């Protein structure tokens, strides 16, 4: 089991409430996964030419300001870190590749949780209520967000093994299910240059979609290709800079509910997750068909 939720706002007036709404959705799914929880929020973009990198260090008192200052000195451009729990969002005036390479070379002790101009990713051990509070999810604004509450089956319970997995730029994935061909796929994707941080099966799906997007696929096309290449049980919710998509495997044994109003599109493992949203009683509610991609985007 696991619980997954996604919320894509159509009405801009709700943006300040995004984190609060996602937190309520995630907490409703707490019974489905008490081991760890996490979320990815697409927020205001970093300035042109800059990138936001969400970093994790197990010590909540880690000196993020020193890391940012060292980075700024090395590139002679601004860099700032905004701590949040045992994570920090580092905004640097640099390209993604070189910025990640600098971190890998100088701070191998910190882990990259996600990167891109909009995405911020936070995840940790504990139930969704506790994790949402630790990172003040309720105080976060944004355009769309995904969340996950995990009951571990395929790999260890650690912060790194928690969802969402953000392997490519601006891309994140949450997964309910398990994959059976992830080891071979991981090796193939690694040869194609995708970097993985864990032995987790869901991270491979995130890497697979990241790779397809790098090859020029649209999000919907990448997910359709996944039907052939990903073997196992899954309900996926995937976020990109301006898009959101849901896919269930052809057997569709993992649950999913979609709901849409004029103000938002929401996805949850169960109706319970959607019930707290404003106007949910009048939403169009349906169960996504197996092997069918549902995608929303923003122009």
């Amino acid at each position, binding site marked *: 089991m696991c619980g997954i939720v996604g919320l894509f706002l159509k009405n801009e007036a709700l943006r300040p409430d995004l984190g609060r709404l996602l937190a309520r959705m995630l907490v409703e799914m707490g019974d489905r996964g008490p081991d760890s929880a996490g979320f990815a929020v697409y927020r205001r973009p970093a300035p042109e030419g800059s990138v936001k990198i969400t970093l994790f260090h197990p010590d909540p008192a880690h000196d993020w300001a020193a890391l940012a200052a060292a980075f700024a000195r090395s590139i002679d451009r601004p860099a700032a870190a905004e701590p949040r729990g045992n994570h920090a969002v580092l905004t640097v005036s640099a390209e993604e590749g070189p910025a990640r390479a600098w971190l890998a070379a100088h701070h191998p002790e910190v882990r990259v949780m996600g990167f891109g101009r909009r995405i911020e990713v936070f995840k940790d051990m504990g139930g969704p209520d506790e994790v949402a509070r630790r990172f003040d999810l309720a105080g976060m604004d944004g355009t769309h967000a995904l969340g996950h509450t995990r009951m571990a089956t395929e790999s260890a319970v650690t912060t790194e093994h928690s969802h969402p997995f953000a392997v490519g730029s601006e891309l994140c994935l949450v997964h309910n299910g398990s994959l059976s061909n992830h080891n071979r796929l991981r090796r193939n994707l690694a040869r194609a240059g995708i970097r993985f941080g864990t032995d987790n099966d869901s991270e491979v799906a995130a890497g697979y979609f990241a790779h397809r997007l790098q090859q020029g696929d649209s999000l919907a096309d990448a997910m359709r290709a996944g039907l052939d290449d990903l073997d196992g049980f899954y309900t996926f919710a995937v976020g990109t800079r301006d898009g959101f998509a849901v896919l269930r495997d052809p057997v569709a044994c993992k649950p999913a509910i979609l709901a849409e109003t004029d103000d938002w599109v929401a996805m949850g493992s169960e*109706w319970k997750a959607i019930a707290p949203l404003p106007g949910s009683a009048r939403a169009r509610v349906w*169960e996504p068909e197996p092997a069918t991609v549902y995608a929303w985007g923003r122009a």
Partner: protein
Amino acid sequence: MITVDLELATVRELNQRLHDLPPDTNERAWTIVNPGGRHALLAGLTRPVSITVEGHVGYYCAGMNEAAEIVIDGHAGVGVAENIMSGTVRVRGNASQAAGASGHGGLLVIEGDASARCGISMKGVDIVVGGSVGHMSAFMAQAGRLVVCGDAGGDLGDSLYEAVIYVQGRVTSLGADCEEQPMADADRAAVADLLARTGIPGDPARFRRYGSARRLYHFHVDHADAY
């Protein structure tokens, strides 16, 4: 009329209260408010009470129902009326997967759509769906009738035994050993009766009948590819 608010009472308290009703109870009309998608509501009832749930329910609502008349004025999660024995369960919205799974008797009415595996392994229940059903519906269904006013998804009636399926709309594909069969007058009368009893609109003349070809009842090596 007894009203139970699930923001105030727990599911366990509600179900226990209903289980404790004596056979000659006068507490026969109930309304449940704020169900909030909670699981296992109204499971295992055995008394002829009438219950309306105002809102959406979670998994396995009205499971094993015996005698009770239950209306869910909202959507239902996985396995609504699973193993229903008798009585009626009506869902005014959509039902999730495995609605009426393994039901032995009684009547399940879904006014909206039902998702995958509706009526899986049904053993005598009648199921009437106002909308469409998802893939693998009536999988291994043994007895009873499934009436679908909309369309049916892929692999309808896979490995079907003696349950009968009536579909008014399109069928994406038939599962192994399921075949279309002629609609006899008795079939039209059966559909007309079920539609009339449930108040679901439909035209009995437009339904098609699907049943078991009975080729897979006993293993025969010539049919090995059909499994």
